């Protein structure tokens, strides 16, 4: 859905409309990397402007770049809102859309070529499946075209209105789908509407038999229709068919009946329902569709429609226009009252539908529709103010509506636009006004009056009163030469009025009364009496004084201590000799450690004075003595020679900081340090312990074995024997098992040390110890009984 996109796009772009040009960029203001925050704001405006046009029209971006890079070229001057500009910018935008459509068509064709041989094989083996599969394939292919046919229609229609795109040859690739759709019995009125639309624009070769078949089917659809969209597409298709061929009878016999059944869906507030099933949902876009449909019915009627029906219809339109909404700058638009998330359409497409419906009804009937001219003009302003919508559908809505407004029977809006709203006194620019229709066609004979001009912000002081602009037929523009002779630099509101020469035209055209346009008059500002001085605080005696030649090159080298003051003063005068107050006048002191201090200059009448009393500022300066660079910024939007100057430096001798003095904030680190490559990490591995020489360790191993040897020798000397070892088979077995068990446990310990973990070891130990207890008990019990026997014996 395009709704949300176009809505947000609209609000975002509104600042660039006729009524509110974005402020111009100070042409010569060079913004350093250390620009003060306030100095950046014109830059931001500029960026807003460029992001709007970015990717849409490179021309617009170029003017913006040249404005920033200097040269006194006004930034916004080129962005007039006349219709012809939209045509220019549209061309790039649309090329890609049509390429996409062509591509879609080719891809679909390839797909069908690929599918066919395989289908052929299958069908040969299963002849009875043939019909089922063929129809299914057709539906699939048609479905894949439907999307592109609608898009193709909208794209082609936009091209037709703009008069471009004739060199794009998409007829060969698109016509087969059109014929397929029209020839197929499965296509509904929706398909046929867009197919016929494309056909009308591409003039595919379709014979009258096909048309006749379509006509009869469409008539059947009209009679069977029960929702508004059914009527819309089938009657729309019949209308297209009527334009395409005169051979076939497309007229509706029961036009009154159809008219009434569509009218039955209307609501009391002038809006419509899409179908009678949901009585609650009334929609403005449905009203637009219904108006178009009814206009179609009137045109297709075989006999005259009842005039009372048409009169109620025009009443409905007037009621519908009561629900129109308005922006502050005089743009009118329609929006859905109930936002249905699923079928939400933005104001752009809703308004477009209503405008199309209105103009269709106006051209189909002889009834005059009483609508105030400023509403029609407001609608035109709405479509022009949007700029270029993001989506192709939004663009189609805009262009189609503008085309309807271009030549409608209600009233044709005339748009007053200025090629340049920034006028330079240096270049002696003329005030130039152009009046055209929405798409840039010539207006009827008329004259433009400058009713008054006043400074922005103060409404009372009118500078110029009622002057008539001279018409320059060569450039098709209205000029006023004398204006700049009496207007000083500044921001002004100029109020224009269009007066039609021919009084009959007043019913045809909507001029919308007075139009307010903001105008910027720029000029070179002179700097006088600039001087910088160091004063003694107590007595006010001048220590050092230097005259400055602004905005020339200066290299000051001053020195001061905390008991002194720095005073900078200068005068600004406009070309007319009036004192001038710039938007920005800053003094910037930057210490060697990049700690910056910005002071705003105050002005006393004519003179700008910055007085720095260092005694009061020592705390603010963080007691940082040393060299400070002095930088002066004077800038304004209407000042052609805005500047940012390095004046030189001052050596400050400030007292030592007391204990509790706040430290200077850390300056942002060098970006290279922050984002550059980090130092390489070297890992420090644990150095291996010092090991003794292996001979020493081995000799001690031998030494440890010595006590075992001594133990064995001692045992032998004591005459130890194994005579006590049981001789009976059973007890001997148990004794052997007991010793084997102990050996097994010890072996398990060794394994535990070498590779096993504690859990495995304990598990094994559990089993072994049960076994060991059993055999150990038997063995020792045997020994005990033997010794007891010995004792008793």
């Amino acid at each position, binding site marked *: 859905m395009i709704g949300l996109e176009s809505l947000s796009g609209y609000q975002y772009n509104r600042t660039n409309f006729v009524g509110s040009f974005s402020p111009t960029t100070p042409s010569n203001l060079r913004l350093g990397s250390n620009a003060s925050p306030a100095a950046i704001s014109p830059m931001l405006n500029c960026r807003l402007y460029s992001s709007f046009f970015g990717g849409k029209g490179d021309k617009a971006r170029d003017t913006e770049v040249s404005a920033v890079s200097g040269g006194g070229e006004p930034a916004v001057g080129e962005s007039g809102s006349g219709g012809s500009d939209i045509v220019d910018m549209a061309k790039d935008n649309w090329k890609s859309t049509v390429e996409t459509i062509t591509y879609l068509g080719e891809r679909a064709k390839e797909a069908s070529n690929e599918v066919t041989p395989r289908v052929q094989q299958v069908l040969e083996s299963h002849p009875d499946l043939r019909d089922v599969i063929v129809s299914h394939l057709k539906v699939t292919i048609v479905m894949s075209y439907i999307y592109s046919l609608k898009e193709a229609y909208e794209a082609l229609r936009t091209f037709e209105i703009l008069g471009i795109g004739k060199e794009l040859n998409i007829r060969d690739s698109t016509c087969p789908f059109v014929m397929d759709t029209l020839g197929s019995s499965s296509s509904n009125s929706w398909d046929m509407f867009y197919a016929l639309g494309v056909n009308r624009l591409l003039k595919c070769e379709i014979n009258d038999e096909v048309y006749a078949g379509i006509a009869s089917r469409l008539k059947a659809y009209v009679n069977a229709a029960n929702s508004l969209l059914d009527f819309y597409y089938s009657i729309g298709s019949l209308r297209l068919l009527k334009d395409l061929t005169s051979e076939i009878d497309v007229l509706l016999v029961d036009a009154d009946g159809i008219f009434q059944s569509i009218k039955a869906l209307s609501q009391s507030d002038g809006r419509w329902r899409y179908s009678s099933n949901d009585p609650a949902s009334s929609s403005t876009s449905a009203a637009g569709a219904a108006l178009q449909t009814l206009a179609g019915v009137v045109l297709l009627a075989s006999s005259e429609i009842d005039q009372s029906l048409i009169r109620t219809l025009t009443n409905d339109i007037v009621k519908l226009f009561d629900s129109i909404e308005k922006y502050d700058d005089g743009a009118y638009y329609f929006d859905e009252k109930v936002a249905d998330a699923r079928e939400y359409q933005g104001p752009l497409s809703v308004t477009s539908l209503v405008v199309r419906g209105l103009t269709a009804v106006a051209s189909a009937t002889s009834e005059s529709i009483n609508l105030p001219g400023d509403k029609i003009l407001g609608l035109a302003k709405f479509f022009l103010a949007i700029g270029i919508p993001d989506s192709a559908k939004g663009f189609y809505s805009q262009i189609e509506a503008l085309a309807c407004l271009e030549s409608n029977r209600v009233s044709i809006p005339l748009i007053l636009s200025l090629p340049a709203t920034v006028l330079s006194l240096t270049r002696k620019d003329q005030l130039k006004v152009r009046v055209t229709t929405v798409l840039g066609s010539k207006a009827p004979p008329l004259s433009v009056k400058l009713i008054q001009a006043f400074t922005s912000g103060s409404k009372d002081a009118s500078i110029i009163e009622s002057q008539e602009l001279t018409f320059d037929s060569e450039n098709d523009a209205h000029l006023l030469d004398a204006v700049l002779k009496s207007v000083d630099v500044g921001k002004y509101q100029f109020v224009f009025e269009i007066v039609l020469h021919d009084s009959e035209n007043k019913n045809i055209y909507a001029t919308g009364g007075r139009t307010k346009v903001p105008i910027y008059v720029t000029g070179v500002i002179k700097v006088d009496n600039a001087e910088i001085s160091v004063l003694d605080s107590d007595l006010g005696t001048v220590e050092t004084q230097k005259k400055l030649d602004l905005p020339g090159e200066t290299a000051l080298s001053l020195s001061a201590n905390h008991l002194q003051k720095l005073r900078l003063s200068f005068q600004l005068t406009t070309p007319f000799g009036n004192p001038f107050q710039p938007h920005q006048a800053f003094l910037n002191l930057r210490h060697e450690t990049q700690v910056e201090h910005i002071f705003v200059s105050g002005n006393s009448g004519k003179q700008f004075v910055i007085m720095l009393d260092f005694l009061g500022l020592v705390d603010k300066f963080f007691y940082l003595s040393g060299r400070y660079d002095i930088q002066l910024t004077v800038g304004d939007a209407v000042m052609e020679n805005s500047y940012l100057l390095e004046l030189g430096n001052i050596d400050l001798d400030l007292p030592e900081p007391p204990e509790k003095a706040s430290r200077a904030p850390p300056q942002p680190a060098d970006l290279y340090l922050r984002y550059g490559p980090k130092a390489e990490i070297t890992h420090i591995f644990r150095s291996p*312990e010092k090991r003794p020489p292996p001979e020493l360790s081995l000799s001690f191993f031998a030494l*440890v074995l010595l006590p075992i040897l001594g133990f064995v020798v001692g045992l032998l000397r004591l005459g130890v024997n194994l005579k006590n070892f049981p001789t009976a088979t059973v007890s001997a077995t148990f004794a052997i098992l007991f010793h084997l068990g102990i050996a097994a446990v010890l072996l398990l310990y060794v394994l535990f040390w070498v590779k096993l973990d504690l859990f495995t070891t304990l598990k094994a130990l559990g089993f072994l110890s049960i076994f060991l207890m059993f055999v150990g008990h038997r063995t020792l019990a045997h020994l005990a009984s033997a010794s007891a026997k010995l004792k008793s014996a």
Partner: protein
Amino acid sequence: MGKSSATKDAQALFQSLRSAYAATPTNLKIIDLYVMFAVFTAVIQVVYMAIVGSFPFNSFLSGVLSGVGTAVLAVCLRIQVNKENKEFKDLPPERAFADFVLCNLVLHLVIMNFLG
């Protein structure tokens, strides 16, 4: 004079000690020998540590404690087995030996775990 008499006295003392020890039952002598073996093993490791250094310390500790622990357990066995000790008169030497084996196994499980 005095020196030679002292030497004689000492000799006489050792003589009496040896004769008295000769009367000790053989199984106690075996245990004594075993205790000596264990203590010497531990002492050699301590000497090694004094010469070379204590790395790896846990291995050294487990080695020394194994020796000392075994010696202590053997001394306990000797006390229980000795017939002169009336305190353990009712305790059969087989039972004492079973305790000794069990304690040794537990001790060495810990030692092995600690060995690293």
